[in-house]
C-alpha cells in the first residue's frame, strides 16, 4: 500500500483554460505528493478545467481512489471542473462502483472532454 511506481505529468491543451494531468503506472496513496503538485501547478496557471488522463494507468488501489476524491474537493473549492479521459473498462467500473463518476465527467478523449466544456 505504501510503495508506488508511476509517472504524473502536467500538460497544456488546445484550450488555454484547461490543463491535463497525465497519469501512468500506479496510483496509490503514495502518489499524493506528485498528484498534488501537478494540481497545484495547474491551479496556479489559472486553469478552469482539469483533465485527468488515465490512458497509462496500470494499477490503482483504494488509496488511489481516495486521492481522486480529495482532488475533486480541491477543484470544486476553486470553482474548477474535473474531467477524466482514457479510462479502460476496468477503471470505468471502479469509478462507477465508488460513484465517483457522478462527480467527475468521463470522456473518451481529451478532445471530447474539451468539447464538453466549451
Amino acid at each position, binding site marked *: 500500500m505504501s510503495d508506488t*511506481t508511476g509517472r504524473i505529468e502536467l500538460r497544456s491543451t488546445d484550450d488555454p483554460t484547461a490543463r491535463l494531468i497525465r497519469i501512468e503506472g500506479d496510483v496509490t496513496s503514495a502518489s499524493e505528493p506528485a498528484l498534488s503538485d501537478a494540481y497545484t501547478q495547474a491551479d496556479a*496557471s489559472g486553469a478552469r478545467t482539469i483533465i485527468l488522463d488515465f490512458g497509462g494507468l496500470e*494499477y490503482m488501489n483504494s488509496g488511489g481512489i481516495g486521492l481522486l476524491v480529495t482532488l475533486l474537493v480541491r477543484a470544486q473549492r476553486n470553482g474548477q471542473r474535473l474531467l477524466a479521459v482514457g479510462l479502460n473498462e476496468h477503471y470505468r467500473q471502479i469509478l462507477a462502483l465508488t460513484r465517483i463518476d457522478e462527480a467527475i465527467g468521463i470522456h473518451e478523449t481529451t478532445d471530447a472532454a474539451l468539447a464538453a466544456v466549451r
Partner: protein
Amino acid sequence: MTAIEPIPTETPPADADRRSDANSWASPVDRLSTTATGASVDTVTGRRVVGPIQGFGQMWQKTFTVRLEGIALTPQALIARWKDEFPTFWPKGSSFYKPLAGIAPGEVALFAVHVPGAPVRMSSGVMVIYADDESFTFMTPEGNALSAWITFSASRDGDVTVAQVQALERTADPFVELSYMLGANRYNDRFWEGTMANLARAMGVAEPNIETVRICVDHRRQWRHIGNIRHSTFISTTIAAMTAPVRWLRRRSAGKG
C-alpha cells in the same frame, strides 16, 4: 499538446514485475444484498452504496495508526488476521456480522453499534469494495450515519509493522451532522482508537499508543444531498423503538379479539 513540467517519479518496473488490481476490486452493484448471519436487523439489503461524494456534512479524513513495536508480524500476516478476526477487535457493545465468504471484494457485512443518545443500537452494514493482502476498504450503504470509505491497511516502517485505519467520511444528513457537532465526531474517533488498541493488544502489544490525525478536507456542507435524510436508519430505528410499545399493545389486542 505540450509538456509543461514533468513531476518526477520512479521508473515503472518491467512488465513481468507488474502487480494487478484486477481481483482486488468489487464489481459495481445496483443494490446491496448480504450473506451475513446473526444480525437481528438487516437495514442494508436493497440499498445503494454511498461514499463521501454522496454525503451531506463536512468531509473528514481521519487516520488512526498504531505501531506494533517488537511484534514479529508481516503486514500481510497482520491483514490476514485482521480480516479473519475483524469482529473481535471492535469495542465492547458493538457487533460486526461477517458475510459467509469473509472480508472479500463484493461481500456485504452487517453491524450494530451503540450511538450516544439513541434508544437502541444502530444497525447498518458495509460493502467490501477493495481487498488485497495489505489492505481492505469498506463503503457504506444509504441510511448509514456516515457516507464513507474506510481503509484498513498495514505497512512496514523499518523493522516495525504499522497498522492503520483511514476514513474519508461525511455525515449522511443534517441530523447526524448536528450530532457530530455536539460530540459524536469525537465519539467516532474513540471507536476507532478503541478498535486499534484492541487490535494491537491481540497482536501482543502490551501498551499500544494510538496516533490520531483528523483533517477537515472540506468545510462545506452539501445541501443538495439533504434528501439523504429519507434513508436514515438512525431515524427509522429510533421511531421503531419509540413506537414498539404501541405495536405490542395492538398485537396483544388483536390476539385477544
